[in-house]
């Protein structure tokens, strides 16, 4: 019986070997499904200047694919989305380099983003609206490799507060996700606001009220990991005045204004949380985690971001692209 099994196995193995060897003689076509013979940047293309700039500044430096020509298969097909405007994509690309990549490069060194930075940035012109709850998606980090930025067609280079809110805060937020998906943050962060998260109705919460509960934004109050990413992003990108405002809100009690359903005024009963202390404690954890896990000085990062976001010259940045000879 044992011998029969052995023979049968041998037969099958031999047969399989013959089968595989005969199949392997059918050499696979050496032609890649991708066009590898093409030059890295097509000089005849209408987008040569931008493609050339992206190749030099993103592909060669960070091995990053900056996808400004939207591919809907690269986005959630359940949403109605549109591509980014070409000129807006150029603006966002040069600003992202100046306000994000070059910041990390200067503070931590170029290898940091080479190792941990996204491999793909995908631009999408419109927001991804969640009609059911009136919210919109501004950014997505997928698998620690890809960051999708939405609402690019609304980019206004003359309004750095909106630039921060919709793009660069989003980039820091999504990058924080990439980082904590790589090295987890301390569990104690998740314990600081237990019981105060509201996963389904966070969008209905007031920014002052959530600050008093220890959150840097309503979205931060949705769940712990978003709280972590929002703490990182808000601390880095909010101006001194904006950050002071959050801490001020956090140190007060808030109550609904009489006969109003959404306007809050100072006063009322305490929510039992020292919001300012909680936020500062969260920042402290973030600061230590950046230092211990990544060797990054969070305050230096914030300092450089704060300086750059109020000192950029968009014409000069654009010129890096548009001055490239065709």
């Amino acid at each position: 019986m044992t011998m029969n099994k052995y023979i049968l196995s041998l037969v099958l193995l031999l047969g399989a070997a013959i089968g595989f060897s005969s199949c392997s003689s059918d050499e696979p076509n050496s032609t890649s499904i991708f066009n590898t013979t093409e030059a890295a940047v097509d000089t005849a293309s209408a987008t040569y200047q931008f493609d050339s700039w992206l190749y030099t500044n993103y592909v060669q430096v960070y091995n990053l694919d900056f996808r400004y020509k939207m591919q809907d298969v690269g986005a959630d097909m359940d949403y109605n989305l549109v591509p980014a405007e070409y000129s807006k994509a150029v603006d966002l690309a040069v600003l992202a380099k100046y306000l994000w990549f070059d910041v990390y490069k200067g503070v931590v060194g170029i290898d940091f983003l080479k190792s941990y930075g996204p491999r793909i940035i995908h631009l999408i012109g419109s927001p991804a609206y969640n009609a059911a709850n009136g919210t919109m998606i501004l950014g997505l980090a997928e698998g620690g490799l890809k960051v999708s930025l939405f609402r690019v067609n609304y980019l206004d280079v003359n309004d750095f507060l909106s630039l921060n809110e919709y793009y660069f805060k989003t980039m820091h937020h999504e990058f924080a996700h990439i980082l904590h998906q790589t090295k987890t943050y301390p569990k104690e962060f998740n314990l600081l606001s237990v019981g105060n998260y509201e996963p389904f109705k966070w969008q209905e919460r007031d920014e002052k009220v959530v600050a008093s509960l220890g959150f840097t934004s309503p979205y931060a109050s949705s769940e712990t990991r978003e709280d972590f990413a929002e703490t990182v992003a808000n601390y880095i990108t909010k101006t001194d005045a904006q950050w002071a405002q959050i801490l001020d809100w956090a140190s007060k009690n808030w109550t609904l204004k009489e006969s109003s359903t959404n306007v809050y005024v100072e006063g009322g009963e305490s929510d039992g949380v020292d919001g300012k202390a909680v936020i500062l404690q969260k920042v402290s954890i973030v600061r230590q985690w950046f230092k211990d896990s990544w060797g990054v000085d969070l305050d230096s990062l914030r300092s450089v971001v704060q300086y750059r976001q109020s000192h950029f010259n968009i014409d000069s940045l654009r010129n890096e692209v548009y001055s490239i000879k065709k």
Partner: protein
Amino acid sequence: MNKKFLSVIFFGAVLAMSLGSCKNEIDDVFDQDAAARMNTALSTYKDVLTAPSSGWAMEYFATDAEQGYTFLMKFDKNGSVNIAAKNTYTSNKMAQETSLYQFIGDDGPVLTFNSYNNLFHRFSTPEAIDGKSNGVGHGGDYEFIVMNASADSVKLQGKKVGYTQYLYPIPSGTSWEDYFNQLDTIDAKMFSPKLPTLWLNTANGKRYTIGNASTHYLSFVPDGGDAISQTTYAAGIVTHDGFRFCKPYQGLDSTFKVQKFVQQTDGTLLCTDDGKSTITAPYLDSLLVTKTLAWQIEPSTLGGDFVKAYNDVVTGCNTSFKTVFQYMQLRYDGASKNYELLFKNGKYTGKLYIGVTTSGTDKVSYTFADDGDNNGKVHLTRVAAFKTFMTLLTSSGYTLSATSTIAPTRVKFTSDANSSNYFYVDVQ
């Protein structure tokens, strides 16, 4: 021995199976591998789209719940595409914008307009329209599977929403302004916003009354049907040779199917799907008695006895009232519930009530019993020419005719008693 025999059988069988399975892979059904064939197709499609010197006209539907829109497109080998539009969103003036396109091997060969174009992507952007919530917008595609492409036409299918779109080459030397103007002319010849209804006359003998044709989002009510419960809708687009629905219209009972119509020399739209169905105006006499329409007699078109009769009214009014006579209209008066000849003399408006009889197709006759509103009666008394005109008007029946069978905004009345007596009326 048995084991050896079995082994031989096993070896033989497995070997045969192995060779058999490999044989299928060795056969070359195609001369290129799949990726190479895709790349060849994409390259060919790009050659087709970049060839016409004046570009292409794209007949685009975002959905079947909204009219279609024409885009003129000039594709460049460098990956840019210049797009022109002329619609309500461009204040009906031609606007152009250049953006990017690409052929990609995705869900089959796909033509994607992959950078935002304000003229084109407004039909795909999820921003709210018509008071609806953000998230949907017009809901149109901007990526299209290439179904087939030749020098004569390109057929695309929206990748996400799925509607079929067509591109046709713009005749060489035709400017885009001229092309849009030609479409406007065709549109005006077919669908007058002044005429409320058309008829769809199907190959199997059914008739549907069409409403809102000038909006290109048509409503249909079956002959004798209930407008509240039996109205159906279909989106369409004016094409270079007529009109096309977004998808085949099949009425209430799907006993017919019509989609593409070509305009004939008399204006009739003939369905090229079945070669029989038509879209026409209703019978002329029914238009003349449509209660929402006013038909104004055009003085420069009078013939025979109507020349003197009308001019005498004008002169008589001037003599009696020192006024300048302005116009006469045949219409229905909702207040008195009478058909009437309404006239405007200087600042005075008068009404002379008339009876109307129609034949059911193209005949009409009038009666007059010296009745009217106060102004009408005063004019009838003080200007004798009014009585003469009304007598002439009611002296015979008329045969109605129009140049266009689909947009008869001007109708000729020819006296059945004397064909040299005639006049034209224009719908207001």
